């Protein structure tokens, strides 16, 4: 039954966006929300030509609150898409609920390996990465550089262990120490003393949030900054750089994205973000921006017919939008196959500290769990 090309009804697209808006981690959610709003601005406040309503939810870093929010968005607001989610444990609680109810879950940060492997689902897409991929890239870089005698440190929780195991998947040289510190620990002087006694040639760490700021400052303070090179993942980013400044100078990180990536979509995103919000965007934001763009591309492809889920799935798989990371493809498990770069913290001409891409470590890197995903397409 063919009709005119106009959308079937003047229905609005409803998107539920779950992130952390309060508490110490609220800064991440702030960046994500800002990026969502910026994306909507760039789309003229329309998704696929339809009006859009975004309902934000604050998960307070709690999986049960996240699930309650998801329930509310699905049953009360009857959203067509649920998006966002920073934390792996919240994602593991929410994603199956959303996909189980026949709704799209467009993750824009958390990438737990369960969802990349056995629990993959056709309604789940992510615009970020699988947690292990970023440390895998660092492991490969350090292996290729023939660095040996590495001391690894991370907080003692699931993500910390994942980071180190991801690192070890590609780094095969000698590891002289593997230390897991308490989650939320503030003072690392004891560990730094141990580290110095072990005499490593390089240090690999994963310290997100406040822990990273603390560790970096104290590492620099202990005089190790210029003695033992420091490599990290998710430790130095655009949120923490203003807080540590010179203590991070020369730091190496690996990431799939950087503000200085040269492509049209990214340059527009970064410039406009800085203009509108007065600060440098961070990767959480880039992922959320892409998430909205991905949803837009799908709705556009089915000409606003939100009941045509198969059509939207097919459209998303085509990645028919301009991502801030440049072109990429989706793997069978709906996780991106993308490049990973080596970044270094340098001083820009204005004296500010920024992350700059040094080289590409992986081109078109696939995650290590896709083989476990039963989906085929």
């Amino acid at each position, binding site marked *: 039954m063919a009709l005119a090309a106009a959308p079937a009804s003047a229905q609005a697209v409803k998107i539920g966006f779950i992130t952390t808006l309060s*508490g*110490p981690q*609220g*800064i991440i959610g*702030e960046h994500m929300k800002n990026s969502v709003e910026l994306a909507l601005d760039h789309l003229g406040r329309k998704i696929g030509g339809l009006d859009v309503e975004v309902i934000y939810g604050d998960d307070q870093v709690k999986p049960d609150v996240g699930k309650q929010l998801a329930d509310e968005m699905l049953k009360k607001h009857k959203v067509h898409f649920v998006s966002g989610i920073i934390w792996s444990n919240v994602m593991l609680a929410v994603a199956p609920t959303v996909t189980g109810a026949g709704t799209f879950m467009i993750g824009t940060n958390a990438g737990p390996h369960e969802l990349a492997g056995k629990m993959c689902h056709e309604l789940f897409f992510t615009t970020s990465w699988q947690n292990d991929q970023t440390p895998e890239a660092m492991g490969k870089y350090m292996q290729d550089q023939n660095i040996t005698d590495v001391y690894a440190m991370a907080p*003692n929780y699931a993500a910390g262990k994942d980071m180190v195991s991801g690192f070890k998947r590609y780094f095969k040289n000698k590891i*002289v*120490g*593997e230390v*897991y*510190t*308490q989650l*939320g620990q*503030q*003072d690392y*002087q*004891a*560990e730094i*003393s*141990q580290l110095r*006694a*072990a005499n490593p040639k390089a240090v690999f760490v994963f310290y997100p*949030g*406040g*822990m990273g*700021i*603390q560790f970096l*400052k*104290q590492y620099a*303070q*202990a*005089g190790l900054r210029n003695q033992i090179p420091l490599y990290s993942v998710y430790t130095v980013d655009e*949120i*923490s750089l*203003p*807080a*540590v*400044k*010179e*203590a991070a100078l020369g730091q190496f990180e690996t990431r799939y994205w950087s503000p200085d990536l040269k492509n049209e979509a990214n340059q527009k995103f970064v410039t406009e973000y800085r203009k509108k919000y007065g600060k440098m965007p961070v990767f959480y934001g880039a992922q959320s921006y892409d998430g909205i763009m991905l949803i837009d591309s799908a709705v556009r492809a089915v000409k606003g017919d939100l009941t045509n889920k198969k059509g939207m799935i097919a459209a998303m798989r085509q990645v028919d939008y301009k991502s801030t990371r440049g072109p990429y493809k989706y793997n069978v498990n709906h996780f991106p196959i993308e490049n990973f770069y080596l970044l270094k913290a340098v001083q820009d001409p204005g004296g500010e500290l920024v992350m700059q891409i040094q080289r590409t470590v992986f081109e078109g890197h696939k995650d290590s769990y896709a083989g476990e995903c039963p989906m085929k397409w």
Partner: protein
Amino acid sequence: MSISLALVLEQTLNGLQYGVMLFLMAAGLTLVFGIMNLVNLAHGSLYMVGAYLATAFTERTGSFVLGVALALPATLLVGVVVEVVALRTLYERDHLDQVLATFGLILFFNELIAIIWGRAAIFTSVPQFLSGHFRVLPGLPYPTYRAVIILVGVAVAILLWVLVTHTRLGMRIRAGASNRTMIAALGVDIRLLYTLVFGLGAALAGLAGAMAGPLYSVQPGMGEAILIQVFVVIVIGGIGSIRGAIVGAIVVGMADTLGRAFLKPMLATVISPPAADKAGSALASMSIYLLMAAVLFFRPEGLFPARSRS
């Protein structure tokens, strides 16, 4: 990895420095608790305020020393305001009410700081002239800044001791700790005394925050992380006593640092390394709580309680 004497000495110094940091916080808290019988969870918020104010003043004046010096009276003032406005009614209440009300203050302060300075951590750094090391022993470089913290802590401990034992105010504080109705009957202005003591406690917390700022992440909620440990310190040391705060702080600081450093290698000599790793991590996190449980089991009032009655 071999454990050398130098490493043990270094870790002992680390434990001492950490203990000193805890002492600065614990001293104020235990005084307030001991004199006014007030459980003040918002003590951590005063620590946070001290850190933020010191950072702001350092930026304005360009001098770290001046920044810290200004932050002290400023935090004292904030403390006094909080005491007069919100805490006065709590003195008569039971501990549960105090815990809950001051918990509400924590929420309030965290958001207030987030509204004024934003949620992201702000930039702090160790001042140039303090950022080097010096050789405690050959092969044992120690960060100058951390050594300064130890010195400051020792100085504060001595000052507090002099204050409490050799001044009029100190005498009133000690009297108030053992029997507050009596000194009220003797004509001492209890209200003023309480406000002064609270202000002193706030200044101490502010000092701890100001000194911790360059080392730690200065962001909303930074007080809560250290608050539990400080409570453990005063429970172990005995409520209301400065001596207890000193001993408790050193004990907790040492236990925590040495536990983190040496539990795993020590365990690895008896059980397999991967198991030692897991057990070591778990034990290290629990170490101060186990220590507290052990102390309370044998001496429920703590090691040096200020009062003879509970």
